[in-house]
């Protein structure tokens, strides 16, 4: 076993675990290949099981022979371990450092994890593109499922099957792909049943400085327009950023070549800036100073809420074009794997009630993020505490979840799930026993053979007890389009993630539980009791009549 070599000291006794707002625990610390475990070996205290993959950074301190390791996790929690013995402490620290930064994909925990629960429905098979397309077919005949990318040769970040206009053949797709960044030719993202308008997404067009054009690309997106109608192209970059992209071979659709389309530029930042923003925000939240001015200025300087507002605004705009203006929309940024997906997926939350259910939201994540080729592994390999130089890390998906939470806050009865579900997804994108968020694209996942070798997160989530835990007790299906407010006063800091470990959340949880209790008491107990009594009475009455 390779892990054994990395673990110099597998266990230490007399370790003290300190966490904010929780009682300290003294016990035995054990290191395994994938976990850091602290157990007090008493019956009623909980054990700490921490995935090494969840550890973002550690710090060591020594006072005499007592060593202290501060463990900073990707879920933003910070814990402290006091370890007696300098050598033990150093050994533990170095083992954690190595184990938490293993590069080899094959050593990752999902390949070793064996589920302790019964898999009722295999999550790997829950959301197949074929099934999603069947729904589409029931609504329209204008689209077809193309397998032009079946061996991932046309676009390495697309899945084997994509929905495209019926009248466009695979050859056209291949040519359009050559004209789009990363081969990401325009594909269907969402079909708005109400008026038949569609949302597509793609990579930027490779116009370059010479204003290159591609007839096939034009044909492809024009095929989605109704006669005489115009569409919108939402470029998630500012005009100047899009202009600059030309120098590197990228660009945007010119009015001359795309006369039926109106282009709107928005300003969603690139991923490196988002990562910096996350780091600053988390630092602000961890600031122990009691100065209000300092907190507000740090919060402002992090720009996090600005990103939330910008992303939400762009998504609302896309939804507005589709629902209000009755126009089709193409969304892209540069690669089409980050800001593009934030916009297309949030627009669907706004427009489509199905996406606000537990199943529907999973389907959305599967379709618009996993299948659509958001590079989860790259984006989520480090979180806000890591000291190592960021490469491709960025909280793109976390920002999406934050935006969903904002909408959920504004429409607390329109979502089948509670914020617990969003927090759960945040945790599992950064560290997980499940294979769902491994790899960067459908092709990588298929090479890793994840569906055979690992368990899907959806298998876990879709068990009745978990569904119940994640459910929103206030939910009442709302078939309407929901327009959130994007005023700064309406946007809140997501305490459930960013201040989660900053205060005793117990009283908030208890208040929530109380609310759940009121609602369930109503729905289940009382209703059942009333119905039972009525049934009994009805029975008694008939008996009486018979006697009569």
């Amino acid at each position, binding site marked *: 076993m390779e892990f054994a070599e990395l673990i110099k000291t597998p266990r230490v006794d007399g370790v003290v675990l300190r966490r904010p707002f929780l009682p300290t625990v003294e016990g035995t610390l054990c290191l395994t290949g994938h976990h850091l475990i602290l157990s007090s070996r008493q019956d009623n205290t909980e054990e700490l099981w921490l995935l090494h993959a969840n550890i973002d950074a550690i710090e060591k301190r020594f006072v005499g022979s007592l060593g202290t390791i501060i463990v900073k996790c990707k879920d933003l929690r910070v814990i402290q371990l006091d370890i007696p013995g300098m050598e033990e402490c150093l050994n533990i620290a170095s083992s954690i450092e190595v184990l938490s930064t293993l590069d080899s994909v094959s050593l990752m925990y999902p390949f070793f994890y064996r589920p302790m629960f019964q898999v009722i429905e295999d999550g790997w098979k829950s959301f197949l593109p074929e099934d999603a397309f069947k729904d589409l077919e029931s609504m329209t005949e204008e689209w077809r499922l193309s397998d032009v990318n079946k061996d991932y040769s046309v676009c390495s970040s697309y899945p084997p099957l994509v929905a495209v206009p019926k009248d466009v053949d695979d050859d056209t797709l291949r040519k359009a792909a050559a004209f789009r960044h990363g081969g990401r030719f325009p594909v269907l993202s969402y079909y708005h049943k109400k008026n038949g308008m569609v949302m597509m997404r793609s990579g930027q067009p490779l116009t370059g400085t010479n204003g290159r054009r591609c007839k096939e690309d034009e044909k492809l997106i024009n095929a989605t327009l109704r006669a005489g109608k*115009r569409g919108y192209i939402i470029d998630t970059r500012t005009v100047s950023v899009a202009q600059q992209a030309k120098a590197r071979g990228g660009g945007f659709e010119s009015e001359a070549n795309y006369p039926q389309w109106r282009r*709107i530029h*928005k300003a969603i930042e690139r991923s490196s800036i988002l990562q910096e923003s996350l780091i600053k925000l988390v630092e602000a*939240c961890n600031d*122990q100073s*009691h100065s*209000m001015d300092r*907190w*507000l*200025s740090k919060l*402002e300087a992090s*720009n996090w*809420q*600005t990103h939330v507002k910008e992303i939400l*605004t762009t998504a*609302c*705009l896309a939804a*507005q074009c589709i*629902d209000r*203006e009755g126009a089709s929309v193409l969304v892209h940024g540069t690669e089409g794997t980050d800001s593009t997906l934030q916009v297309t997926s949030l627009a669907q939350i706004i427009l489509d009630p199905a996406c606000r259910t537990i199943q529907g939201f999973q389907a959305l994540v599967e379709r618009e993020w996993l299948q659509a080729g958001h590079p989860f592994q790259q984006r989520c390999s480090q979180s806000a505490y890591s000291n190592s130089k960021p490469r491709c890390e960025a909280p793109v998906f976390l920002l999406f979840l934050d935006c969903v939470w904002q909408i959920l806050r*504004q*429409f*607390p*009865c*329109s979502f089948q799930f509670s914020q617990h579900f969003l927090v759960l997804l945040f945790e599992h994108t950064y560290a997980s026993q499940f294979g769902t968020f491994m790899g960067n694209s459908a092709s990588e996942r298929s090479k890793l053979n994840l569906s055979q070798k690992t368990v899907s997160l959806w298998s876990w989530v879709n068990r009745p007890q978990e569904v119940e835990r994640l459910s929103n007790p*206030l939910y*009442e299906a*709302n078939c*309407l389009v*929901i*327009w*959130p407010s*994007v*005023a*700064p*006063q*309406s946007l*809140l800091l997501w305490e459930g993630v960013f*201040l989660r470990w900053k*205060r005793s959340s117990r*009283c908030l949880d208890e*208040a*929530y539980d*109380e*609310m759940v209790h009121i*609602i369930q008491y*109503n*729905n289940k107990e*009382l*209703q059942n*009791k*009333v*119905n039972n*009594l*009525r049934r009994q*009475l009805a029975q*008694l*009455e008939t008996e*009486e009549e018979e006697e*009569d």
Partner: protein
Amino acid sequence: MDHVEQVRLLERFSNKSTSGTLHLTATHLIFVESNNTATTILHHHIASVEKLSLTTSGCPLVIQCRNFRVVHFVVQRERDCHDIYSSLLRLLRPVSYDELYAFSYNPKQNEQQREEGWQLIDLGAEFERMGVPCDRWQLTDVNRDYKICETYPRDLYVPITASKPIIVGSSKFRSKGRFPVLTYFYQEKKAAVCRCSQPLSGFSARCLEDESMLQAISKANHNSRFVYVMDTRPKLNAMANRAAGKGYENEDNYSNIRFQFVGIENIHVMRTSLQKLLEVVGSRFLSVNDYLLGLESCGWLRHVKAVVDAAIFLTKAVTVEGASVLVHCSDGWDRTAQVCSLGALLMDPYYRTIKGFMVLIEKDWISFGHKFADRCDQLDGDPKEVSPVFTQFLECVWQLTEQFPQAFEFSEWLLLQIHEHVHSCQYGNFLANNQRRREELQLGDRTHSLWAFLLREQQNYLNPAYCPTYADTHPVLEPSTLPCHFKFWRNMYHQFDRSMHPRQSVLKNVLTLKESNCQLEDTIKDLETVSTCIKSNFICHIQMVSRYPVLTTSACLAFPTDPVLTTSRTVEGSSGTERKESYSDLQGTYGAKAEPAVVSLEFGVARMTC
């Protein structure tokens, strides 16, 4: 002139507008839209009226209210606009109390109900609840005729050892005669919270009676050898006061005191701060960065935190150390009221109930002479006296309810409603500056009590997450003072800007469900009675119907509509008409529908004074 037609009401944060008719009555300004929905504004709520320069579509009239409503009308003819403007100016400047709405307001109650309303809150009983009088504290009659201090109530509680000469001497050494008196007694440790105004110490003056007074307070508590003196002002301000013959206690002259500055700013700073805050959040197309920078630079949340911090200090001194504390500021009716009442709220679960909260306001604010008339600008007075001190207190309470969702019997709706009526002058409770004046005005005979009204509809103000047993495990609240736990109170400062609010309210829904739970429980009881009757089989069906007529209607046997199904849950703003504002420059770029260019001015220059 009583009404003007074809007036347009512009929405504050979008380009939407509705048209209708503007009515002006003796007490209200009423705007009736074509679909018959009405916006009603009480004249007393209006802080300022501004007539802006004529535009192509008419004459704009901007009305700012003390409850943070801002309305922007466009009147077609300038003459009409001017008429409304001048009528309003006349109406919203009452010069005598008799003109206030409270004296004409008639809620169709009989005299007995009205009188009972005033008897709901009894401060004597409240001190008894705290355990006073006792062997160390007594009721004194020195102020029976408001002779010693005219801004204090008649009934005051002082240490048993404080003789009349001591009291009189001390009162002469305190600004406005406001000598140290008891406001809260923490029975568990027999520790007292006392309040007063600043001493007239200047640079060196001292007063033996005042020193004895503090000594007496200290001696009344066996837990601690000293008494804390909390000066809630910033040190610099207190020092500056010495030049005017006022100042703060010299620790050398008072044995057994521990002196502490807390640093809450004065009423002028608070007034400007809130003005700035309202300016920031009132601007259209506000960016997140400008919003956060504005929150920082206006300082409002910093001030709110300072008040909460002071209350926490007070609470710790009393509950942890068991020490008595004397709180004062300059006159002892603004910051002192904030800190004492907030401290008591943290220490005593009773004040976190609806009734208890009313008692708290009655005691620390109304009876001890917070100058509501001046601070809320009830009569045409000195604009420099106006300050949102009480609003700030309500906000501190709200911040606590956010941190402790189970600890309070009431929801923020109660706070909003109280705020509304502090300014409405519709009830007698908050009129005038002190008890003495209130008695002169015979408010108890001539007006109605707000508390009675609020208690009657207290169902609306319940916090569904309230857990009465929470008080057993958390008698004393220990809030976090980290700045990230202080939030902008949108539901107060934007309470009339519906576009900014969540479209569905958890509070409303849970309250409805809770109510329907009660109904269901009743139904179950009824059904059970019926079923026992049938089972015992001593009456026949027809008899049963005649004997239990009520039951057969309420607990109809044939599966009537369940209360749950009939309670409607509303989704605002998703209908499509509600949130019409564009999320971008969309309208400008494509398919633009030209908006009339009336919106020429920046909104939100809210002024607390005219």
